[in-house]
């Protein structure tokens, strides 16, 4: 018996005018109906005095996975029971599911495990994966209800006036919303009320998600964080300006993730921070020279970011083990899942210790000084070298030639050099080459990948996607080859440490042995795959594709 509704939203951004528009709406309805406030509902079991105010909190991951997938997750508390509502922007009704939750803390981030065993959790598990669901907006809506009476004093429709407000993270009022609710058997009167409201200036018919309004007030925009480089560079920018812009963008990402790392919200904050640190180090190697810093300065920053990278490594390695754990347990053939429990407990204990070391480092004056000075330095370079590389003239009237030329020249030159290194080293690898040669190739491959990503805005998208796709497949293979090796080594040393600490039951050691055997098999498979992947990337056709990309076209 849910009554049909027609919605209106008050226009404008000035809260001062909103009240006037609501008053005008009531006055317009008054021409035809007697408008009286709905009497307070008689006290009944189950309804409280504030029965007409509703709270809501919306969630997304830090990198907006839900919004990118076109879904919205909302928490709605209620006296009868609280629930999570997952709804889809697509007009597909069965995409909407709800899940009752008890004891949910709306202002905290939640990992997908908190939603286990319900339809919303099931729907979101693979999308959200290891990322936490973070509250991005919270509102409280007070509703005033009015009755529209006919000449008999009969209620023939209702007007609901919602006054929503954002409660966090930045409180403030939102435009009111009006809705006409039908009373059964009085459709014509409700339609009449809608027509009267349609004529009120400052009111727009239609529905807009409250979440959208709340986000706008908060100053957030879906997609305002992404771990992509996406620097705002153009082809004829001076090389130094482009370099500083790219590095600033990487620093932004480092800074954006710092809070999430320290709060230990999920593992990906640290991951993204590390990637940006690695990219920064690669960038310094690749085109640090065009920044026109002294050699000592350059060295000092390179050393600073190496320090940050090393600081984050132990925690990240343990995160990887722990993230892989469910899969590792599933892959056991002989051992029982429980056998690995002491291993997990040991990993968790070590992670707690390593995480403390990490947070001390990130809170240290050294870290603050490094990132702040780096930002100041880069901003200055960016300001000095903004604008176009061509067309500017110096005082003598000569055409201004920035050191290192334009961004286009820089991109082509440095990317080509990185590609040549990969092609040469890769071609030298034979089935007998030591593992270290493949690890080195992976590093060079990473540098090339970063070079491509830094200058991505200058490349033709189709050609870029081709080159990057082949490179990514090569890198995945090399990554699997090296990571499995590292993990085998780590498990061995952990086994020794657990044994020394008397924390290693025999069954656990056996199970860990089985895990390393599985890793070794994966490593062999990766090694066997290398030849094919490398050829696909760096054969003659591959070289042509790269050359075409750097010329600014397709092969």
């Amino acid at each position, binding site marked *: 018996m849910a009554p049909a509704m027609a919605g209106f939203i008050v226009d404008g951004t000035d809260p001062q005018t909103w009240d006037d528009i609501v008053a005008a709406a009531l006055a317009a309805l008054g021409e035809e109906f007697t408008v009286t406030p709905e009497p307070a509902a008689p006290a009944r079991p189950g309804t409280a005095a504030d029965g007409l105010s509703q709270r809501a909190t919306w969630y997304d991951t830090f990198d907006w996975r839900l919004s990118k997938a076109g879904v919205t997750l909302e928490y709605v508390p209620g006296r009868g029971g609280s629930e999570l509502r997952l709804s889809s922007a697509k007009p597909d009704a069965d995409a909407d599911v709800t899940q009752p939750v008890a004891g949910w803390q709306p202002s905290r981030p939640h990992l997908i495990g908190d939603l286990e065993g319900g339809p919303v959790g099931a729907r979101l598990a693979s999308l959200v994966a290891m990322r936490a669901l973070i509250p991005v907006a919270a509102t409280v809506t007070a509703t005033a209800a009015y009755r529209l009476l006919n000449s008999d004093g009969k*209620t023939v429709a209702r007007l609901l006036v919602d006054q929503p407000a954002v409660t966090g993270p930045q409180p403030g009022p939102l435009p009111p919303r009006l809705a006409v609710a039908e009373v*059964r*058997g009085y459709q014509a009167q409700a339609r009449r009320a809608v027509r009267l409201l349609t004529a009120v200036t400052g009111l727009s018919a239609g529905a807009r998600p409250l979440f959208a309004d709340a986000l706008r007030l908060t100053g957030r925009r879906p997609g305002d964080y992404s771990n992509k480089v996406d620097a705002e560079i153009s082809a004829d920018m001076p090389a130094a300006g482009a370099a500083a812009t790219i590095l600033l963008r990487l620093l932004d990402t480092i800074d954006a993730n710092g809070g999430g790392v320290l709060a230990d919200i999920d593992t990906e904050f640290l991951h993204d921070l590390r990637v940006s640190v690695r990219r920064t180090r690669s960038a310094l190697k690749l085109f640090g020279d065009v920044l026109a810093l002294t050699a000592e300065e350059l060295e000092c920053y390179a050393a600073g970011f190496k320090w940050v990278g090393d600081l984050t490594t132990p925690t990240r390695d343990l995160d990887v083990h722990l993230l892989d754990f469910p899969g590792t347990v599933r892959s056991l053939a002989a051992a029982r899942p429980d056998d690995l429990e002491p291993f997990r407990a040991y990993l968790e204990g070590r992670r707690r210790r390593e995480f403390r070391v990490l947070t001390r480092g990130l809170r240290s004056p050294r870290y603050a000084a490094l990132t702040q000075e780096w930002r100041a330095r880069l901003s200055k370079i960016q300001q000095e070298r903004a604008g176009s590389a061509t067309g500017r003239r110096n005082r003598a009237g000569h055409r201004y030639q920035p050191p290192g030329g334009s961004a286009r020249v820089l991109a082509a030159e440095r990317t080509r050099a990185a590609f040549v290194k990969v092609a040469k080293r890769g071609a030298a690898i034979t089935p007998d080459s030591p593992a270290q040669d493949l690890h080195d190739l992976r590093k060079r491959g990473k540098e090339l990948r970063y070079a491509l990503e830094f200058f991505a805005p200058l490349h033709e998208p189709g050609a870029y996607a081709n080159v990057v796709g082949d490179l990514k497949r090569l890198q995945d293979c090399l990554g699997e080859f090296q990571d499995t090796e590292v993990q085998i080594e780590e498990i061995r040393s952990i086994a020794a440490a657990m044994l020394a600490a008397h924390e290693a039951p025999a069954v656990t050691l056996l199970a860990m042995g089985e895990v390393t055997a599985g890793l070794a098999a994966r490593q062999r498979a990766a090694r066997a795959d290398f030849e094919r992947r490398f050829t696909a990337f760096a054969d003659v056709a591959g070289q042509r594709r790269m050359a075409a990309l750097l010329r600014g076209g397709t092969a």
Partner: protein
Amino acid sequence: MRIYAIYNIKGGVGKTTTAVNLGYLAAEAGLRTVLWDLDPQGAASFMFRIKPKVKGGGKALISGKRPLDDAIKGTDFDNLDLIPADFTYRNMDLLLDDAKPGGRPDDAPGGKPARRLSKLLAPLADEYDAVFLDCPPSVSLVSENVLHAADTVVVPLIPTTLSVRTLEQLAAFVGEFKGFRPEIFAFFSMVDRRKKLHREIIEQLAAPRGDVARTIIPSLSVIESMSVWRSPVAVIAPGNAAAKAYRALWAELRAREGLASS
């Protein structure tokens, strides 16, 4: 879905007053409730400020040409809807007699279509928990229909010697039903305790009979004023003795059902 018929062959005993107040209390208790005003005078419709008129005519409704659903109006109260009276109901007996659904032979005793209302109400079972039928006075095909449709026949009685006879006749009539027999729930209404006769009759009748409620609805001016305010007493004066009496009556009726069904 439980169907309550507010019934008495006598006029002016408080049937409509009872239907309006109990209907309101049922809805307030959370039951999805609909009140059908079967009296062409439309007193119950008036109480809810709803025009005594059925869209498309009452005839189409009774004949089954239009679903009952189409005629339902929302009252001003949560959970409470109303099917308005219609002028054509003054010929309800004829309408019921005419209605030959799909030409099927009727299964009513004596060849009368006495179960017509019952069939019309059946489709509402998904949507409502309680149905209140406000009946016009008189013995007729309408009353018979109502008695066959009801799970409970609620009988307001004014304490007179005659009213005792009325109740006995009704019990005997219902007792002859083949198959399902509704429960009878009688109660004294418009009681004036200052009147010796009222006190005596209540004592005489209430004591030996199981179908007479313990709750008594006194004669009170707030109840009379319902037609001025056009609202149930629990809305006009929630704390008044009248409101309390109807609440007690509703509670006793529900408790009685609990016993009957267990």
